Each structure stands twice: as structure tokens, then as C-alpha cells.
């Protein structure tokens, strides 16, 4: 009886795995186990009617009971094997996604082309409502990524964030909040002092065309440095969450949620864009001060 209860629990746990989409019946597993057991498969197939009718268990000889016991062990082993394989696949998927985040956030920018820098901050391919809703230096705020994790931990009962992990999370939120503010400051400094450095500024005393171009390049280089810092901070947060803070299952849940929410917000932005409600001003009385 105790063993049956264990098995039942095992089955429940198995179903809680997020990527374990199909529920597998005993019969499937037995077939699976039987085929894997190789030479003994015929014997197992032959035993099948006995095993299915438990009322007849008492009539079986010790040898038959032993066979049955082995058969059950084999099917459990098969289930475990399958679980392990799916876990391994899960690991691979998580690694793959993490490296996708890495290449996305460390995306090499080959030139200081103004268009490239501008596109990082204000990507033309993203609808303006999505940008306004979430964008900080061109992408999600690192603190928002942690907010999502906080919410997952609070609302998702299968999330197994330990107390110490929760403490780490609050600590991390505070630290990342500060790092975000530092980046904000650096960016604001560039924006506030560009009036001293841009070549067309009344304060900029550039002598030649080349000098003018160089000064703009330098400024854009500095802005690019700030954007890179923001990107690295985003990746740092994702890496910490996925590698240090969460176990495998929770990481998978996190990635699913992050992707789903990004998608929902993107859809919202696209829908808003389709409505074409552009900023407008009264025709008369404005715009003609001269």
C-alpha cells in the first residue's frame, strides 16, 4: 500500500513539471518498459493478464510474484529514465535561452552610426506604446524583471523559492535599483552636458569639420557605453535569477512567464499602433507665431 501511495505521489509530482505536457498512462509505460527490457519482453507480455487482475495475486507462486516485482521495478525505472531525460532536455532548453539572452543583450554594435545608437534607445520596430510602457534605455528595466520574479514567487504555488532565496531576491532588488539609478545619472550627465560638446553648440569651439565629426562620435561612444551598461545589467539579472536563485523547474516557469508577458505587452502595443491615434493639435491659433 505504501508503495502505491509513493507511486501516486510520484505521478502527481511528475504532472507538476511544466514541460511535461502529456500524461503517460501505466499501460504506455509498461509497454515502454517491456520493449526496453529486451529479451524478457515476451515473458512480460505473457504475464500481463495476471498483473492486471490484482485479486488473483494471492494465487501466484513466489516465482511469479518475483517476476511481477521485477516488472514493476522496470516500469518505475522507465518512468524515472523518462523524467531524467526530460529534465536534461529542460536544462538544455534553459541553457539555450540564457545564451539567447546573452547574445541579445551583448549584441555587438559594429559602428557608432547615429542610426544604430538611436535604434538601441528607440527601436523603430517596437510600437511606441510598448516602448512607453516598459522601456528603459531601449528594453525592460532590470528591476521589472525582478518584479516579475517576485510576483511569480508570490502567486504561483508550485514555485519553491526558499526563505533564504526570498531574502536574496529582496536584497538583489535593492541593489539593482541602485545600479539602475547610477546608469540613469550617467546618461543624464551626457544629456545635460551635450550642449557643451556638440559641434553646433554656441559653446563648442571646433576648428574643423573632422573635429566636429570626432566630437559627435565621442559623445555617441559615451552614450553607447551607457547603453551597454544597461544591457549588461539586464543580462546579469537574468543570469543570477536563472542560474543562482531558481531551481530548474522554477527557471522554466520564469522563462515561460517572461516570454508570455513580453508577448502580451507587445501585442498590446501593436494593437494600439493600428488605431493610429497620433498626437494632434488645433489647426488655428497655434503654430504660427511669426
Amino acid at each position: 500500500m505504501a508503495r502505491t501511495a509513493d507511486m501516486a505521489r510520484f505521478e502527481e509530482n511528475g504532472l507538476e513539471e511544466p514541460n511535461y505536457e502529456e500524461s503517460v498512462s501505466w499501460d504506455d509505460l509498461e509497454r515502454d518498459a517491456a520493449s526496453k527490457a529486451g529479451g524478457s519482453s515476451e515473458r512480460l507480455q505473457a504475464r500481463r493478464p495476471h498483473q492486471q487482475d490484482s485479486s488473483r495475486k494471492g494465487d501466484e507462486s513466489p516465482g511469479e510474484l518475483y517476476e511481477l516485482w521485477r516488472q514493476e521495478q522496470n516500469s518505475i525505472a522507465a518512468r524515472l529514465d523518462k523524467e531524467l531525460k526530460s529534465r536534461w532536455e529542460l536544462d538544455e532548453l534553459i541553457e539555450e535561452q540564457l545564451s539567447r539572452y546573452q547574445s541579445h543583450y551583448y549584441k555587438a554594435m559594429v559602428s557608432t552610426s547615429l542610426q544604430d545608437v538611436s535604434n538601441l534607445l528607440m527601436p523603430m520596430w517596437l510600437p511606441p506604446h510598448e516602448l512607453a510602457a516598459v522601456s528603459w534605455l531601449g528594453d525592460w528595466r532590470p528591476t521589472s524583471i525582478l518584479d516579475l520574479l517576485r510576483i511569480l514567487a508570490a502567486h504561483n504555488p508550485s514555485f519553491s523559492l526558499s526563505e533564504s532565496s526570498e531574502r536574496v531576491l529582496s536584497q538583489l532588488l535593492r541593489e539593482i535599483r541602485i545600479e539602475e539609478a547610477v546608469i540613469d545619472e550617467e546618461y543624464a550627465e551626457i544629456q545635460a552636458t551635450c550642449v557643451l560638446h556638440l559641434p553646433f553648440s554656441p559653446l563648442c569651439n571646433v576648428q574643423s569639420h573632422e573635429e566636429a565629426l570626432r566630437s559627435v562620435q565621442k559623445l555617441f561612444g559615451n552614450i553607447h557605453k551607457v547603453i551597454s551598461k544597461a544591457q549588461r545589467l539586464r543580462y546579469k539579472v537574468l543570469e543570477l535569477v536563472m542560474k543562482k536563485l531558481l531551481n530548474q523547474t522554477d527557471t522554466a516557469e520564469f522563462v515561460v512567464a517572461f516570454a508570455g508577458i513580453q508577448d502580451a505587452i507587445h501585442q498590446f502595443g501593436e494593437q494600439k499602433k493600428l488605431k493610429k491615434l497620433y498626437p494632434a493639435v488645433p489647426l488655428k491659433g497655434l503654430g504660427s507665431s511669426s
Partner: protein
Amino acid sequence: MPFSLFSRKKPTRRFNEFYADWSKTLTENCLPLLRQSLSSAASASVLSSNVDHVLRHLVLYYETLDLAADPNTVPYLLFPSWRNSLETPFLFLGDIHPYLLTNLLRSFIDRENQDSDDDENSLRLIQDQPLKIATAWKDPSDELVTRIDQIECTMRLMVPVLMDRMRKAQRSFVSRVSENWVSSYQAGKKKKTVTAVPVSAASVDEAAKVEMEELVSIFVDANRLRKSVIMDIVGATSEHQGALFLEGLCQFLVGFKDQLLLQDFEVVAHMHCPIDSRLIP
């Protein structure tokens, strides 16, 4: 509804069209006007009325931005596609950073009051101007210095608040959407449906409505700040100083629109390729 008053009843035009005209006026009218009254021996009243005129033009821009901003349109104003790629990286909540204004003013003063070694240099720059104008920034009054400190002080209180509000608005939007998403995902899992129920568009809309209203308020406050700093600076400075400040500001704003310069930057950027590969980890 916010759009019904203007866009339905009265004839309207797109904000970007207004902006193009406004910018053209700034380039072709305001800047030459100021230059003219600064370099010639224009009478005080002409100078004064020109300063007034240009100040009104700048104020008009911020007031028009406010009129154009509502929860539907504020994203376009915060990320204006009508600004070129030279401008966009310098936009703070949709326009110039307010600190830029006092930095411009302070630099005018500092440049004229540095060690005497630089005197030659500064005189060379402004030799075609009347003496009154050439020496406008020399030895600024204590009153002006105090007033600049005050303006800066107010700004340094307000800018962090604006950024903080922006951060809070975005974070609570993401939190709201996340909560909705997680609970509908949970509900979907209980029903054992294979794919999670996607969060309803209506619930994102609902969260966005709250956020966009706050963004409008932040945007309007940011513009009010920029506008009042410009007005305060002109109010605190003398006629000549005010005219020079506005001339500098207009020159800076107009400078972003130089298409030839813009093209050259792009060409050079592509030729010189990587800014520095060591920046890329």
C-alpha cells in the same frame, strides 16, 4: 474621452506637422532675428521685442506639446519619430534635458570670467558685436548668480522626482500585467489545458490606461519645468544676456536639424566602423 474635444470637433493637424513648421520658424525667423538685433546697433526696444517674440515661440512649443498629450498619444511624444537620429539619444522625456539650460547659461558666464589668458580668445569670437553685448557676461551680478542657483536647485529637486515617477509607473504596469498573466496561467494549468491561457488583451489595456495617464502627467510636468526654466532664465538675466542665451539655445536646437552635417556623421560612422571593439564584451 480626451481626443473628442479637439480631434473630432475642430480642425486639427498632426503634431509632427506643427513641429516641422515650428522648427522652420525657429531656423528661418527666430535665430536670424536674434542675431540681427545682437550684432547691429539695434535699439533696446527692438531687442526687447525680439527677445519676447522668440521666447513666445519657445513657450508655444511646450504649450502645444501639452495640448497634444493624452493617454493615447503620449507614447508618440515620448518617442518622437519626427526627431532625427542625432537628436533622439539626447531626449529626456521627449525633449531636451532641463539641466542643459542652466549648463548653457553657466558656461556663457564661466567662459567670460575665466583667467585672463582666455580673454583674447573670447574677444575674437565676438568681435563683431557691440561692446555691451561682448561684455554681457563679464562679472555677473550677485543677484543673477543667486537666481541661477535657485533655478538649479528647483530643477535638481524636480528632475529626480520625474525620473522616479517614470520608474514607478513602468514598474507597476509590468507588475500588474505580470499578476494577471500569472493568475490566468495558473487557472489554465488547473484546467490542465496544454497551452496557458494568454493574458487577455483587456487586462493589459486596463493596466496600460493607468500607466499612460501617469505618463501624460509626467510629460506635462517635464515640459512645464523646461518652459519655466527658460522663462526664469530670461527673466533673471539682463536684456542682452537674455538675448544671448536665447540665441545660443536656438542655435543649439537648430543645429540638430543640419541635414548635411547629419549625413556626414553617418558616412564617417560607417567608414570608421567600430567605435571600439573593446566596448563589446
